[in-house]
């Protein structure tokens, strides 16, 4: 059983890292997006293997949807297809490579050399239920904070991304009549 777990872990780890590298190697933006989605799915399944099935599956589902949205953004904004016109879209490549290798060496050395403490406590029989009870009990503050942040993100995202809002039409005090529109509405225009 332990060998099977190890094989599964190393397979998923390889998929996660290789597909993360592919994100910055492939020419096509769509392929880069799919590679990132694959990396997230692999990490999501490792999280499931770490006995957090709820959070692992949430990660997988959320990231698949997010990458689908991201692929649309890529097509919208790139303005050309790098798969047809391969070109380098990077700057400071050597410096970035040096910084990332240094980061890997420092973090990897920390992971391998630090004397990690022994495990304290035992997991609950049903960790998902325990998470729900924590969120609705002693960790309620997290829900109370995250919820308004999410709402603020929705409002902020719409305000930033909207082309014309009611303030463009009706003025800052919403009292301009008739509204300023590119084309006059109504009958008989």
């Amino acid at each position, binding site marked *: 059983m332990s060998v099977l777990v190890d094989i599964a872990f190393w397979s998923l780890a390889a998929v996660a890292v290789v597909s993360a590298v592919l994100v910055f190697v492939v020419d096509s*933006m769509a392929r880069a997006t799919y590679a990132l989605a694959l990396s997230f799915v692999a990490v999501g399944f490792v999280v499931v293997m770490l006995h957090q099935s709820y959070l692992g599956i949430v990660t997988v589902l*959320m990231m698949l949807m997010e990458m689908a949205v991201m692929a649309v953004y890529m097509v919208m904004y790139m303005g050309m297809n790098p798969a047809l016109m391969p070109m380098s879209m990077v700057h400071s490549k050597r410096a970035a490579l040096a910084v990332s290798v240094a980061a890997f060496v420092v973090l990897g050395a920390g992971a391998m050399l630090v004397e990690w403490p022994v495990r304290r406590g035992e997991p609950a029989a049903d960790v998902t239920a325990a998470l729900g009870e924590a969120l609705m009990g002693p960790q309620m503050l997290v829900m109370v904070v995250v919820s308004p942040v999410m709402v603020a993100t929705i409002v902020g995202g719409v305000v930033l991304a909207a082309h014309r809002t009611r303030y463009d039409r009706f003025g800052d005090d919403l009292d301009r009549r008739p509204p300023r529109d590119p084309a006059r509405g109504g009958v008989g225009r």
Partner: protein
Amino acid sequence: MTLQLVLLVAAALFAVGLYGAISQQVVVMVMMGLEVMVNAVILAAAAMWWFLAPDPTGQVLLLVVLAAMTVEMATGFAVATLWHRARGSDMTDAATDLAG
């Protein structure tokens, strides 16, 4: 599967994401780099939770990381949309005047 090995994989993912975030010129690709880095944080946090202190508080922290990632993506896309509308560009090099 040990804590050290999972953290090593997370370190590799973080380094790959860091490379992307620093080197890419397209705004959405920079965001992809940030996503890979958060991916590594999720993996490391999940491993720490399971191998060191498997009580529900650690899972709540993981949920906060997921929420932070959602906020980052939504706001990032909104800013990219505004940026594209205002200047017709999706390159970070064209946005250096926004620094500071």
